[in-house]
């Protein structure tokens, strides 16, 4: 089976207008096809007024390409890209709440936390909250480490990802604002086949 035919994690990056209802319009593109969204983050982008979605799904590239096209077809979507994990720099943030007594009593816990790059965010008499940022395996790893010591609460954020080969959206947006955008903006994947960045 070739690489392209395997299911794998894809990072979908969507530049959109900041419009009420758009989240739902994008989400139903996945739900209609019974595709689970593993992670979804919306945030501002490098451009004022332009929003950025980061969506992670585990799928075949063929499916991801079709989904990306359906997303880009939405009126308020400026551009949608998809990338494998190798093509992006990505991070997730996790918070862990553990009993302060346990930390205080067991020196090994503090060492483990340090080794895993965790940082105390809040220290109270009754509990302490640690934070780590990193890839899924790293944040997952700390869960299993803390579990024997009574992990009280755990939460992980959605993934945020920066596209390695992207030059940002500023120049593209200026093109979009023109009546007749240039070809480099209205590109399609056929013209970009040789490039590292998959784009619509």
């Amino acid at each position, binding site marked *: 089976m070739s690489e392209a035919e395997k299911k794998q994690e894809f990072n979908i990056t969507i530049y959109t207008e900041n419009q009420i209802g758009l989240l739902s319009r994008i989400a*139903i593109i996945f739900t209609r096809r019974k595709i689970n969204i593993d992670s979804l983050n919306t945030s501002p982008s490098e451009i004022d007024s332009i929003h950025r979605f980061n969506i992670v799904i585990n799928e075949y590239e063929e499916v991801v390409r*079709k989904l990306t*096209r*359906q997303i880009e*077809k939405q*009126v308020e979507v400026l551009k949608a890209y998809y990338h494998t994990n190798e093509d992006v720099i990505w991070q997730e943030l996790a918070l862990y709440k553990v009993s302060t007594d346990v930390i205080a009593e067991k020196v090994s816990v503090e060492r483990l936390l340090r080794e895993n790059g965790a940082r105390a965010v809040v220290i109270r008499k009754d509990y302490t909250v640690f934070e780590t940022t990193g890839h899924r395996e790293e944040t997952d790893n700390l869960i299993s480490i803390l579990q024997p010591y009574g992990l009280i609460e755990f939460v992980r954020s959605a993934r945020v990802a920066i596209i390695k080969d992207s030059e940002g959206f500023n120049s593209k947006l200026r093109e979009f604002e023109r009546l007749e955008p240039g070809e480099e903006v*209205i590109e*399609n994947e056929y013209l970009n086949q040789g490039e590292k960045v998959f784009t619509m």
Partner: protein
Amino acid sequence: MEVAQDTLTAPAAAETVNVSGSVALLEALIAEGTDTIFGYPGGAIMPIYDALFDYNDKLNHILVRHEQGGIHAGQGYARTSGKVGVVFATSGPGATNLVTGLADAQIDSTPLVCITGQVFAHLLGTDAFQETDVINITTPVTKWNYQITDATEIPEVIAKAFYIARSGRPGPVLIDITKNAQIQLFDFAGYKPCDHIRSYRPKPIVRPQYIQQAAELINSAQKPFILFGQGVILGGAEQEFKAFVEKSGIPAAWTVLGAGAIPSDHPLNVGMLGMHGNYGPNVLTNECDVLIAIGMRFDDRVTGRLDKYAKQAKVVHLDIDPAEIDKNVKSTVPVWGDCKETLPLLTKAIEKKEHIEWLAKFNDYTRQEVEAVIHNELNPTTPEMTMGEVIKQLNEITKGEAVIVTDVGQHQMVACRYAKFNNTRSNVTSGGLGTMGFALPAAIGAKFGAQDRTVVAIIGDGGFQMTCQELGTIMQSGIDVKIIILNNRFLGMVRQWQELFNQRRYSFVDIQSPDFVALAAAYRIPGKLVDDRADLTAALNEMLNTPGSFLLEIMVTKENNVFPMVPQGCSVSEIRLK
């Protein structure tokens, strides 16, 4: 001094008018060229209807009997006129009744602007009387939707709505307007149509290199085959398409929605594609070497089993919607763009050719189909009439000049197969969604959209009963629609499948009908029932010659099957003649 400067930079008083949101909406509709609105009033849209009272001379509002009828009428209007259909409905149930029509318009790319009333903004989310989350309900079935809660948004949003509905691949747009915004007074600075939205690209840029690659494939093809869909009609590219077909000499077959893009009797028009399409176009899809798909989307009813569909062929796909390219069938050359622009470029780049032997193959399959299916369907020897012979008689009288509106089921397939179309925008049917109940209201709209043409609705006994209340709309508006009910006393298509695939277990397909002629009479619509072949031609003539609407109920064979047929899950080349 400061005061004086302010008055200079502010818009001159004469340029703005203090109007309600409702008036601004109606002014916007007029500015967009709307002449007809299909609608139904209710509490949350009353301010708009109050304003409409004063616009009677500019906007012809047709009071329908159900909002579903309203939206199908809007679709029929859009399909024959090429303009954007406009529909009004109130909040809650009024709006939810639009959903079927929105889904139908979405899948068949029909441009609509639907205006729904909504409860006051301060009541949103309180489960107020007749409040429904219309935006979320309609999101999957609209090209775009938007809720207006402030009247000042109305001019700009309506401009966007029309632009989005009609540009690119057309589709339905729904604008939900809260009651306070309808009432609110604001300074209306005039209407400015929209021609650009930065996040929306209606047409991909045409790439000369793809035109060149496509032309090379076409020029070197021995057995090329054209499949065309509604994209040709929506793009207004009928002439450009005809020029392409004639210069290339390539046989061309149509999807249900593409019917009429070139005349039925054009020598290179080889017939209909798909499940109940013609024999040759289906079988030869799997023999051609280059498949040129124009403005069509390879629906499963067209392709049959995908992994056995045209695998031997190189595929050139012309489409305005990039999401359609490679969605179902992988293309060798994707010609993205509006076919009105791409077709002339392609025509210029190809060599003039004839494919005599290849075309003869289609004609040979046609002969086989005539022998096995068509002859008996059109010239039955049974005492009972067939649907096909009715269509044949109708063709002989209308000479292919009528607009044919069909519902969904056996009669639809028979009508599409056998009706003659000389003109574009003549075949109005629910293709993608398969909405029973579509035809009667759509025919009303079709007539409003093409008032100088004869509009004939062909409907089954089942589908007619889904929206037959629209006879009231016909009565009140005085519109001239010729209605043919092909009554086989069955839900025929489901019955056919039960016969072929469920061992004749006829589960709930035996449908009883009222006296349709008496029903029409109750609405003051003249009608007639025909159950004898000898009366058919005279009855059709009477229907067509009677001024105003007319309902003709024709009794046809109970258990007739539509053939040829590509059974579900089979390849197009496994098409059955019986």
